[in-house]
């Protein structure tokens, strides 16, 4: 069973891992690559344990050549309502 459902915008882009990540309760990170997303994969796995996440996203966002659009917006410096 999927540990949780997480929207792609709540995942963080990790430059080092070249993947979108989300905290895993074991202490490691759930991970999914842009290529995975482009292929329609919706499961983000944790390399350290058996848990996995279901990623909620719009596949079309990852179909274009440029991936810029798909990255979550950078957090703003001050309060945003």
């Amino acid at each position, binding site marked *: 069973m999927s540990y949780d459902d997480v929207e792609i915008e709540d995942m963080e882009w990790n430059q080092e891992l070249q993947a979108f990540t989300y*905290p895993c*309760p074991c*202490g*490691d990170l759930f991970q999914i690559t842009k290529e995975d997303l482009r292929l329609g994969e919706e499961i983000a796995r944790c390399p350290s344990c058996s848990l996995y996440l279901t990623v909620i996203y719009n596949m079309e966002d990852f179909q274009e050549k440029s991936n810029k659009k798909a990255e979550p917006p950078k957090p703003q410096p*001050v309060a945003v309502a």
Partner: protein
Amino acid sequence: MEEEETRVEEAEERKEIWSWGAGTDGQLATGSLQDELTPRFIRSLSAYGPIVSLSCGGAHVIALTPGGRVLTWGRGTSGQLGHGETVSTSQANIVKQLEGFVITHISAGWNHSGFVSGVFMCSYLQLVYGQDEDEETGAIFTCGDGSFGQLGHADSSSQLYPRQVSYFASKPVEQVACGMRHTLVLLAGVLKRSCDYRDLSGILCGAGNVEKPVYGFGSGKRGQLGISTDKVKLTSLPQITMGLENIKITCIHANGDHSSALSADGSLYTWGRGFCGALDTYIPCLSDVDFPISKVALGWNHALLLSRQGYVFMLGGDRHGVLSDPPKTPSTADVRVTRAGKSEEIITRIIPGLANVKVVQIAAGAEHSAFITGKEMLKFFHNGSIMTWGWGEHGQLGLGDTNDQTAPQVVGLDRKSACGDAIPRVYCGSGFSFVLMTKI
């Protein structure tokens, strides 16, 4: 020097600090990066004297010494260890940047850390001797990942050294609680001139005319900041948590996307992500439990409540916190549905093996739970047993395997060599656990 050596020897003899569970980032302080399925005695910390308290985060740990010095170890990739670098270490190191401050409160979040310097003594001095408020008291420092504004420095940058949160420069802070992507702060009582200066105990307890607002900053998407009835994506500037005005808050907690506060009369307020699939709550909501609560521990999908009578209750836990349906397990009783705001929550009483055993302390990891039983035990149990249940894949239950447990199990510690009559204290990080055996 000789004294220090004696202290080290004594500490090693007493075997005061133990750890187990996920160890890949060095968070167990064992010197290796292995998971440990059973409690391991930590030799490396003994040189710093008895550890007063611990706070365990996603994969790092903060420890407090009696003199208010701070030690950190574990994952440091975002600067959460406060040593000015982005490396992980299984070796406990003093946070040099905080030397000179007497730190009284610590909190480790997923990838960030909060430290509060002492406030009480100085307030007392100020009141009795009319000294000016010392800037170093009641100050809050944060370091680590700041991507969501959870460090409170009005930006989203990360900090490799503890940096004072300037917003609170003129507002003395008492407590800090770090969650996954957010931070809560409880102010020390704003002392009114009308209170009796001679009543020191009243000042220390925060009794009398004292206002203690709660602030939140960082990610607010699940309502965990409690700062608005509308959805707030994030704020990097602290804002007052709503709905707690005129309530004397004694304790704040944060873990995952959950937040809670306990009032002096034992009432529980929760906000943030809903438990058991309940709706998220955007402002603090009084929990509908009919007993006074003495302690609270938050996981990622469950909360443990310790009643003043010494009973443990669990809120939520529809995932690994309990694994199966709570009503079906023999270890639980009194399952009932309570209301928190608009939605319903399931609360379950956890029976620690024997029905009349009392619990004195609780701790929650992301998906596992632990408690310490009190003295009123039958001889079958040791005085002050450590019991764990929940998710066990990394050995975080300390039971020698990687199985999950739906009911509390006794953790076997080599008690003969442990600190005589000391009651153990348990602390849980996301996927690991620590026990302190020091005398309080």
